[in-house]
């Protein structure tokens, strides 16, 4: 249907980078973005030049700080960012002053002749990949909504440019100020820059130094990131809410297991006897053995309950549970003591007249106890009873399991909380000094 391309008198020249000289100091200047630069900065004398003017008219002269401000990525470096080649063509340092302290950050302008411009920012080793928003964020006082995600207001400050290098597709000047408002939804941040009447929105995504070093094949290693940056993703990769949801499910599971095992526990009474101890008889033969009793079923728990009518007294029993068939023995000592009285705070008591211990996984077989009592020297005689139950549940095990689950959940919650606290302490909404797990104080 088409009549083909109209013939051209001559092929249009291939656009190429332009080499010029600074009208002030004569240093070489390269224009890398094919006629799209508005201003270009001479790297050797700090003159800001009109890139649209064939004579590169000087627009502004600023005091050079090249010795102190040096881009990590030199101008002209190419790198691959998210699959596209970009060349670094401009660099600027900006700062904002909050409560008398100036915070400096660096912005790199990247260019690809087909994809256009993109930015990288760096602050204390934290990097961000920035592009201009194609859609308009919806914003109210404390948050902004962009592409269905809610960004929380982080900070509003005045940013001023204090050092520039290379070329820019807009009129750049040292001393230029803009009102910058940041909203965060880690790992992304949404920023508006207000200059005169024009508002520009940009969206940024957090990047780690090593990613930048790899993308631009930079020598050495990136500077260590200091502190927590506004949109730095939390190292707690899993959502804290999900951790607690999982904890809840496991705790419920444990409860069910406990109930089921308690219901299915046989709780067989296998031995019960009351012994009488007299100091007069105890001399010479302190220990004795009990009758033999049988433990049946698969290896399971054995509960030994000792009771004695002590009152401000104690009795201590050295037990050995011995398997008559194999000679295997479980040695353990139990104390029963109970003290009570009155003092200025009223009545008090300590200890109990009953003691319970559970021996885990005892195989079936014929068993007896060897018991060696030691009794409070003030007591001439005492009766005590021993009750043995086969196959009981041990709630303590479930308690330990619960704690084992609880500890990592608590640790993760705490680390996540500390990270968020550190993040927001740099914002316009610092966390209160004393606060619960909820995040920040809203000052508006």
């Amino acid at each position, binding site marked *: *249907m*088409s*009549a*083909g*391309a*109209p*013939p*051209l*008198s001559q092929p*249009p020249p*291939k*656009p*190429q*980078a332009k080499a010029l000289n600074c009208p002030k100091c004569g240093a070489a200047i390269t224009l890398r*973005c*094919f*006629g*799209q630069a*508005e201003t270009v900065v001479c790297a050797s004398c700090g003159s800001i030049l009109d890139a*649209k003017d064939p004579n590169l008219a000087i627009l502004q002269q600023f005091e050079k700080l090249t010795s102190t401000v040096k881009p990590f990525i030199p101008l002209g470096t190419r790198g691959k960012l998210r699959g596209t*080649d970009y060349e670094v063509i401009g660099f600027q340092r900006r700062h904002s002053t909050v409560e008398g302290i100036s915070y400096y950050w660096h912005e790199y302008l990247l260019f*690809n*002749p*087909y*994809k*256009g*411009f993109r930015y990288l920012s760096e602050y204390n080793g934290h990097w961000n990949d920035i592009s*201009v928003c*194609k*859609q*308009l*964020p*919806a914003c109210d006082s404390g948050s902004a*909504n962009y592409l269905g995600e809610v960004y929380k207001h982080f900070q509003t400050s005045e940013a001023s440019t204090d050092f520039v290098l290379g070329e820019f*597709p*807009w*009129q750049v000047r040292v001393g230029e100020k803009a009102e910058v408002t940041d909203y965060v939804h880690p790992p992304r941040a949404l920023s508006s820059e207000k200059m005169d*009447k*024009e*508002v520009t929105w940009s969206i940024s995504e957090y990047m780690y130094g090593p990613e930048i070093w790899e993308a631009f094949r930079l020598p050495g290693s990136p500077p260590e990131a200091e502190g927590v940056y506004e949109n730095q993703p939390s190292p707690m990769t899993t959502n804290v809410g999900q951790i607690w949801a999982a904890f809840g499910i496991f705790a419920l599971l444990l409860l069910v297991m406990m109930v089921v095992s308690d219901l299915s526990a046989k709780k067989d009474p296998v031995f019960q006897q009351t012994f009488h101890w007299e100091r007069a008889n105890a001399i010479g033969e302190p220990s004795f053995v009990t009758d033999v009793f049988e433990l049946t079923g698969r290896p399971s728990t054995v509960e030994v309950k000792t009771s004695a009518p002590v009152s401000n007294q104690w009795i201590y029993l050295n037990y050995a549970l011995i398997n008559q068939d194999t000679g295997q023995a479980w040695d353990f000592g139990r104390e029963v003591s109970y003290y009570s009285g009155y003092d200025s705070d009223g009545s008090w008591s300590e200890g109990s007249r009953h003691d319970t211990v559970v021996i885990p996984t005892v195989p079936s077989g014929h068993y007896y106890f060897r018991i060696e009592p030691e009794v409070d020297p003030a007591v001439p005689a005492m009766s005590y009873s021993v009750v043995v139950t086969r196959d009981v549940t041990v709630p303590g095990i479930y308690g330990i399991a619960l704690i084992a689950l609880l500890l990592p959940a608590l640790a993760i919650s705490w680390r996540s909380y500390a990270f968020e606290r550190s993040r927001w302490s740099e914002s316009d909404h610092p966390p209160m000094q004393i606060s619960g797990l909820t995040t920040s104080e809203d000052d508006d």
Partner: protein
Amino acid sequence: MTQPAANCPNCGAKIVFRWSSSVQTVCEYCKSILVRTDVDLKKVGQVADLPPDGSPIQLNTEGLYRNKSFVVVGRIVYEYDQGAWNEWHVMMNDGTSAWLSDAQQEYAVSLSSKLPNLPAAAQVQVGQQFNWNNQPYTVSVITPAHYRGVQGELPFQYWDKTDVTFVDLRTESGKFATLDYSDPEPALYLGEFVEFEDLKLKNLRSFEGW
């Protein structure tokens, strides 16, 4: 749809219209601006050299928009205080025409929209909202621009312009609108931002070293 070839009344070169509804074209050789009349072509002006251009798009660049292929047949070049931009006139494969704008490699496709009661330039302010096709559009920027030149085929006569005010509007869903105050009667274009990759452009310019 191939149009009979005509000759440039200025230099005699062959002039071919690629789009049947084109009203104006520019002679590739002598840069005469030619307007179609009932019988022949009339020279109405001359294009000065266009400024050096960083756009990867050129006449005859082909692409895809909403599953329709298109070819670039013309453009208008504007300048403003932050540089220049192109409004590329594209011919869709269904015979309709659209505009592909390229401002520092931010691409948007828009269509002429004939809606009534458009605001006069003096009435528009940044932040103001307008409702068109049940979409709230917010004025994001008012650009005083300068007509810089034309190339190729256009759907209307456009050559004797100087200062032109453009009002850009955006929505929260990626749509955009432009109010063009080139003529006494404002013109509205409705469109959306598009990603370079999605346009699947072919026959682009090449850049030294890229």
